[in-house]
């Protein structure tokens, strides 16, 4: 595929890896957080970590909307879907997320709830139009990448006077989450040296919203594409910033991201959504002004108002380390459930559900590397 294959050239990757190795200062260590789950997945899948020098560590961040959605909101969605009038439309990633008492949307559907996986908000609108007797609720989750499509669907529903369509809104904001991570790590013994910034979120919001990371926290950010060569080039750019004592927001994904982003998409979001006072994130707790809700002008399409949803906070599985893993404080292998009770087939925590979750990525790709590395070390000793 054009704009994909050329950024996966293994020979070029070897060259860039050699470049990174040549430029790192062997006396210092570099800790970079890739905020976005898409990067986590790419780094695991293509073995990017194996191509990096020993003193460059990648920390996996919380940029996976499925992973950060708290249990209480999944419980709400299951309750909503259990209403016989309701057809719940959802992106497929959410189907297997564990809720309270071992429930999930998948199990609720097996028990008879009308839950349908959709590719796009347009599909949910079509269902609402085709089945006027059903209350069609779209379970909206995601960062700023996914938010404009939800905004457009709500506006279309209003234009078409679709009275049987509503949205259960769980849209969250990237820069705020980044701030929460940076604020929380001030007491960490080994702070981050730089951030790999999300790219598809940035097609919408632009590069500008990350400037506080450089200005207030003194850490470099490089907004990176999702192919392995993109990620490696971004790591090289971060290494160079640190070596040169610079700290700026740089854009590696110039082919699709600008400083100001997509003004039209931002206008759509601003017209339909406003900030919530506070929203619970798995792993980060309650974060002020970190999520969106529908403005008063579109309140008739707000499923929370229509169905009187009052979220009850629910505890995660106490043995599950998803929270600490999402903050970058622990690795998947630090969790005693990892790979034994908790696998992609039987996920106990959300990080094992989405292919972008740290645990799922490590389970699918990383554990084999761990084993072969251990074998090599044994052979060498």
């Amino acid at each position, binding site marked *: 595929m*054009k704009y994909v294959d050329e950024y996966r050239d293994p020979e070029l990757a070897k060259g860039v890896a050699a470049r990174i190795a040549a430029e790192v200062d062997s006396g210092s260590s570099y800790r970079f957080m890739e905020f*976005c789950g898409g990067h986590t997945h790419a780094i695991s899948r293509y073995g990017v970590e194996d191509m990096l020098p020993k003193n460059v560590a990648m920390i996996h961040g919380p940029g996976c909307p499925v992973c950060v959605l708290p249990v209480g909101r999944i419980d709400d969605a299951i309750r909503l879907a259990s209403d016989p009038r309701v057809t719940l439309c959802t992106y497929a990633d959410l189907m297997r997320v564990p809720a309270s008492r071992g429930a999930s949307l998948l199990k609720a559907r097996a028990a008879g709830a009308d839950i349908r996986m959709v590719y796009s908000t347009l599909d949910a609108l079509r269902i609402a139009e085709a089945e006027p007797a059903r209350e069609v609720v779209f379970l909206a989750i995601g960062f700023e*990448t996914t938010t404009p*499509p939800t905004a*457009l669907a709500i506006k279309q529903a209003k234009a078409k006077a679709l009275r049987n369509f509503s949205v259960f809104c769980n849209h969250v904001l990237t820069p705020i989450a980044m701030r929460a991570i940076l604020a929380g790590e001030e007491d960490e013994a080994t702070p981050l040296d730089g951030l790999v910034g999300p790219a598809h979120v940035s097609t919408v919001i632009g590069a500008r919203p990350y400037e506080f990371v450089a200005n207030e926290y003194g850490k470099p950010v490089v907004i990176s594409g999702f192919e392995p060569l993109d990620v490696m080039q971004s790591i090289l750019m971060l290494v160079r910033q640190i070596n040169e004592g610079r700290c700026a927001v740089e854009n590696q994904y110039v082919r699709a991201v600008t400083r100001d982003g997509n003004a039209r998409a931002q206008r759509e979001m601003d017209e339909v959504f406003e900030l919530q006072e506070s929203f619970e994130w798995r792993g980060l707790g309650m974060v002020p002004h970190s999520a969106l809700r529908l403005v008063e002008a579109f309140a008739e399409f707000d499923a929370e108002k229509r169905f009187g949803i009052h979220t009850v906070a629910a505890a995660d599985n106490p043995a599950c380390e998803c929270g600490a893993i999402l903050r970058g404080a622990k690795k998947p292998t630090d969790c005693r459930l990892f790979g034994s009770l908790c696998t992609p087939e039987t996920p106990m925590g959300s990080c094992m559900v989405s292919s*972008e979750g740290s645990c799922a990525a490590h389970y699918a790709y990383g554990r084999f590397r761990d084993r072969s590395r251990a074998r090599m070390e044994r052979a060498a000793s």
Partner: protein
Amino acid sequence: MCLAIPAQVMELLGDGMARIDMGGVSKAISVALVDDVAVGDFVVVHVGYALSRIDADEAERTLALLREAAAMETPS
């Protein structure tokens, strides 16, 4: 979740919609969020919506920088 895929616009369908080709898969998506989309353009597609246009010159420049980084043997 925020995975988006580069796709080529094959046909404008009107009403803010277009038919695109994603590595051989043909799909109707919304282009309502990107101004002045034309047939032949490459766009980044996420959950059925084009989010931005791909700049061919910038894409080539990125590859040139990668080739340059890979070809350098010792730090200058």
